[in-house]
């Protein structure tokens, strides 16, 4: 590494970038920069990226100011080609024939020259590389603004500051020339900010921009604490909202606001959704845990001196609550049951018809699931009938994320029994792997019926997800179904489902057991290969396998089973009767007897689904199996004996594999 380094700073000034894209973009920005510098043999020192809605900033602490000089060997013609060729090669490379070297290669001796390559200036390398690097940052949805063939980026780039040491790295991108100046906050700062590397953050802050996300987060948190001091109110934490606001602002300042007590009569779900999702306010609790008629908004401003911002936000909230109250009251005038027919006008999916049709299908499926679980069908069916009716209410049209929840609340107000309204209320759960499953059995059955219907009908018209394309969030639906089946202990066989869908669910089950439950992939493979009857059964087997695996006999036995599988495969064994008469005394007969004893005992434990005992007993087969392989040659010269031995192994393998296919277990002693 050369001695001379300088700090490098690149600031891209962009019109407001969508908040959720900033962090991923910074990661890519840094990766592309490191890659480019490595390709150019330049050390960078520590690299740091920062972002606000209006700027993406990359800083390298100690960038080498030029590449090291290096030597390059240029190969010429083979020596055998003669003098003429040598002279030509020398001429082409501007050197005297006498300066040519001879290089020995495996193909013979060759003429060559050693050429010194002077390292290039970093400033020049950066100027050449940065336009391409910047436009390579990937975005979920890019745009053009200088014309149809112009540069594409997330939003228009309006200024670029690029400084290496004190010098500008000169380049142009989308008609913007790089320069030395930055810009401040739209309202709080200057349009031209002169800075140097040491004063950059400080100068920005003076101009209303807190560059570090960490500092913005802290300013919000401290500000909220200060606002709440002595008020007897508690913040309802919302980490996702906090992150949104950190990347929606350059200078965040929380303010306190209130609304009229009378709105607390509205369902809390509605108040909270309006405040958090639609207005991006934090909500507050009183000491008794009830919702407080106050909120915290975060401005992109230093102070609200005249109280205009508070007043404005309070007025907007009041208008929204007024709307919500109007919807709540007018929606209640028409019963959910009367609304069901209107679902004929609500599209589920263009190829799949209306929500009325979906409702009919979900109802039938919920009834069938309830029947196979031995659960009374009445409440489930009623809930399925009404579940989608809230899509026709003004409240859900306005606050779509409250679908289901509103249906449940309206059903409650309209006197539906608790089992019914709760099932409707919860039937979209779980929406993510962090969500709980519905608390009631009715809710679980309805949720499962709804998700399976969505999956099955989409699959039936060829809308299965492919690669990263999953516009109908079918993976999420399938994941939810798996979670419901396992955590809801719903013993439903997957057999009834079409092959493609069953595979899809099994794939999601693998994901769930591995990523969410932290189980080993080979254990999951072993259990699923044994085709458990349902997801609850699969979970029980996995649990047992995980524990038994830790006992000493297990892994060597698994290795032997892999060997058995290979032997059977190589012999292309297609089954056959085992004739005990043909068994040789000694390890062969002993294995037969031991296996018969063990399998009979396993059979008994399996009747009570005691997988732990079953597997533990299977593990005791190890010494007999080991002795068999030590002493017995499966490929006996006598064909009848050979077939009989294969039959013995086959029987053992099949019976043991009906719990978990041991040969799927990856062991350190596995030999293929």
């Amino acid at each position, binding site marked *: 590494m050369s001695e001379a380094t300088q700090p490098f700073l690149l600031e891209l000034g962009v*019109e*407001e970038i*969508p*908040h959720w894209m900033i962090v991923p973009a910074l990661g890519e920005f840094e990766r592309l920069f490191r890659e480019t510098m490595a390709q150019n043999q330049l050390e960078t020192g520590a690299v740091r990226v920062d972002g606000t*809605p209006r700027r993406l900033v990359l800083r390298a602490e100690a960038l080498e100011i030029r590449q090291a000089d290096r030597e390059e060997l240029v190969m010429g013609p083979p020596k055998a080609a003669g003098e003429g060729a040598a002279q030509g090669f020398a001429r082409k490379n501007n050197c005297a024939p006498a300066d040519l070297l001879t290089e020995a290669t495996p193909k013979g001796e060759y003429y060559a020259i050693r050429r010194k390559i002077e390292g290039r200036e970093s400033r020049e390398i950066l100027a050449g590389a940065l336009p391409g690097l910047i436009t390579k940052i990937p975005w979920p*949805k890019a*745009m*053009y*603004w*200088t*014309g*149809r063939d*112009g540069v594409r980026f997330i*939003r*228009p780039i*309006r200024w670029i500051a690029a400084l290496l040491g004190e010098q500008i790295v000169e380049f142009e991108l989308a*008609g913007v020339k790089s320069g030395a100046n930055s810009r401040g906050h*739209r*309202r*709080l700062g200057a349009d031209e900010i002169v800075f140097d590397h040491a004063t950059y953050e400080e100068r920005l802050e003076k101009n209303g921009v807190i560059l570090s996300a960490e500092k913005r987060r802290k300013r919000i948190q401290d500000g909220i604490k200060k606002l709440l001091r002595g008020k007897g109110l508690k913040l309802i934490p919302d980490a996702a909202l906090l992150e949104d606001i950190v990347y*929606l*602002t350059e200078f965040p300042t929380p303010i306190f606001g209130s609304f009229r007590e009378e709105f607390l009569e509205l369902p809390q779900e509605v108040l909270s959704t309006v405040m958090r999702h639609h*207005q991006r306010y934090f909500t507050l609790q009183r000491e008794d845990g009830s919702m407080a008629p106050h909120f915290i*908004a975060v*401005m*992109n*401003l230093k102070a*609200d*001196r*005249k109280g*205009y*911002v508070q*007043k*404005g*936000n309070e*007025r*907007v*909230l*009041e*208008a929204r609550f*007024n*709307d919500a109250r*109007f919807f709540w009251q007018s929606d209640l005038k028409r019963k959910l049951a009367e609304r069901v027919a*209107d679902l*004929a*006008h*609500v*599209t*589920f999916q*263009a190829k799949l*018809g*209306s929500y009325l049709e979906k409702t009919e299908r979900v109802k039938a499926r919920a009834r069938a699931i309830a029947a196979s679980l031995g659960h009374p069908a009445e409440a489930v069916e009623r809930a399925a009938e009404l579940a989608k009716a809230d899509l026709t209410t003004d409240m859900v049209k306005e606050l779509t994320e409250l679908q289901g929840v509103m249906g449940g609340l309206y059903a409650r107000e309209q006197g539906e029994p608790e089992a019914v309204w709760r099932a409707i209320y919860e039937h979209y759960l779980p929406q993510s792997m962090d969500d709980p499953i519905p608390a009631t059995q009715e809710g679980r059955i309805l949720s499962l019926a709804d998700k399976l219907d969505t999956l099955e009908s989409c699959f039936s018209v060829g809308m299965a997800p492919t690669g990263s394309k999953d516009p109908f969030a079918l993976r999420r639906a399938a994941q939810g179904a798996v979670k419901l089946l396992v955590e809801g202990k719903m013993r439903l066989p997957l057999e009834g489902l079409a092959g493609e869908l069953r595979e899809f669910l099994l794939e999601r089950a693998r994901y769930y057991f591995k990523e969410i439950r932290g189980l080993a992939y080979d254990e999951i493979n072993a259990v699923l290969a044994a085709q458990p009857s349902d997801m609850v059964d699969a979970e029980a087997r996995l649990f047992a396998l995980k524990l038994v695996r830790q006992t000493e006999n297990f892994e060597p036995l698994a290795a032997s089973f892999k060997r058995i599988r290979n032997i059977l495969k190589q012999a292309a064994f297609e089954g056959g009767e085992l004739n005990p008469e043909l068994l040789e005394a000694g390890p062969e007969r002993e294995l037969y007897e031991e296996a018969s004893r063990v399998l009979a005992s396993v059979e008994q434990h399996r009747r009570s689904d005691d997988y732990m005992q079953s597997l533990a007993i299977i593990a005791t087969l190890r010494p007999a199996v080991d002795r068999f392989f030590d002493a017995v040659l499966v490929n006996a010269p006598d064909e009848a004996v050979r077939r009989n031995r294969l039959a013995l192994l086959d029987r053992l393998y099949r019976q043991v594999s009906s719990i978990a296919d041991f040969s799927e277990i990856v062991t350190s002693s596995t030999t293929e």
Partner: protein
Amino acid sequence: MDSYQETIFKLKRFWAKQGCVIQEPYDVEVGAGTMCPETFLRVLGPKPYKVAYVQPSRRPADGRYGENPNRLYKHAQLQVILKPAPANVMDLYLESLEAIGIKLDQHDLKFEEDNWESPTLGAWGIGWQVMLDGLEITQFTYFQQCGGVDLDLAPAELTYGLERLVAFLQDRKSVYDIEWVEGVSYRDVRFLDEQQFSVYNFEKADVGMLWKLLDLHEAEAQRLVNEYNASGTDKSRFPLLAAYDHVLKCSHNFNLLDARGAISVTERVGVIGRVRKLAVGVAAAWCDQERILSGEVAA
């Protein structure tokens, strides 16, 4: 405090100073200012254009009989098109807010991602909703595509929701309480309009007739587009603007049928597709005619 109309005057004057043509509202029913030919057709092709106009926008399904303080069957938009978008378009927009008396150092302004898309027009763009103290006051869009055509110059479209904005400026809880001009409220001017059209749109519109109108306007628009495409000469004076009026009529009749609950799910997708086909047909023909008119290709 400025009246409703004074605020409109100020905005128009501001954009006039930026070199915009100040147009009058288009005289065919539209759901949004974007649908007026001054936007839909003018954003196509390579010719720069700057225009601003107030457009009453009819959304039959949003009617509330004049009973909801914030929802209207017909609301007014101030529509600004800057083609191409100047590099300081954001600053201009902020200045326009200052021009109607909003002191931006005393208010919280945020630009939140909100991309715009109209399947019926085959159009989409990238942009924001502009939030002022938590209230959405403007939709800011860089158009990327219109009538299925990638736009040569990505124009900026600013759409101010006038009732909302003025309710904010006048500190009114209901848009009906806005002072239109001294002594006359928004209610005085518009209440009957809201009430009667809600009654018509939701209860009385003749569904059979609406379907017939939709079919007639569709046929006429399609006939014109076909004729344009088939004609060898005389394309330069062909009435594509008339064809587009019929597309707008289709769209409005579709919205009426929708508000009346007369369109089934399967029909809905189909009708949107029919209107889009017309819009795309007119847009393609318009681009072709522009090239002829600019002398780029012979007529």
